């Protein structure tokens, strides 16, 4: 069998990553995740909130003058 003789299997390095590496990776992942959440908050969610707020104000029966929310001509 070819695979019994395979010298490519014998040139695999034997080194292991240092213990601290896992912490570094998970810390970076946490930071990246946090930054993505912040970016999401100020882009998608901000826009969504603005739209919701405006539609609530426009649809509210207490709104005295709906023309206030219209663009001036």
């Amino acid at each position, binding site marked *: 069998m070819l695979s019994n003789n395979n010298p490519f299997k014998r040139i695999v390095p034997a080194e292991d990553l240092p213990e601290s590496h896992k912490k570094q990776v998970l810390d970076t*992942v946490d930071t990246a995740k946090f930054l993505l959440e912040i970016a999401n908050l100020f882009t998608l969610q901000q826009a969504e909130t603005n739209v919701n707020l405006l539609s609530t104000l426009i649809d509210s029966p207490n709104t005295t003058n709906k023309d206030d929310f219209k663009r001036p001509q």
Partner: protein
Amino acid sequence: MSVTKKTTKSPSDKELITQILATGDTTLFGILYDRYANKIYRKCISMVKNTEDAQDLSHDILVKAFLNIARFAGNSSFSTWLYAITYNQCIDFLRQRQKKRTIEFDSAYENIDQVDDEETVIAEKKLFDMEVERLQELMYLLSNEDRAILLMKYQDEMSVDDIRQVLNLNISAVKMRLKRARDRLRKHYHRIYVKS
């Protein structure tokens, strides 16, 4: 008296990924780290030959994997997907480091559409007869692309279909690249060890 055996089965890669996507829990990614980090690291050493660079690359590959985990479609195994990121990241790194390297192009291969299976077996036998130290030395004389495809095929024992997915090529192109890489390795072997 009945004894109930409670077997704790560790979750599969796909189960873990589903949980990560649902919860965003980075500690679950730690389990995937434990499964694959050293394999990625060793692959990086094989590619870049330097442990410090290999550590930095492993870090970047694992972070990239987490950030893109939603894109893992499940068409291949998670390890194949991870190796795709690993090889591509290593090749990009080496390209940047070397800036420019002329890749030898042998026009003799241009018109070959199919690689004969029997010819492949004979070529593999010749490769497998090489001594380990010589093979290790010769691998670094190859281009990054040749080294990567030989490692995928003979060290990771990836199928041609898996390699096709990693390199985004069709099956005949993968077979052709494998043949070229084997031929170049043999050429180096003859130039260095047979002629001298």
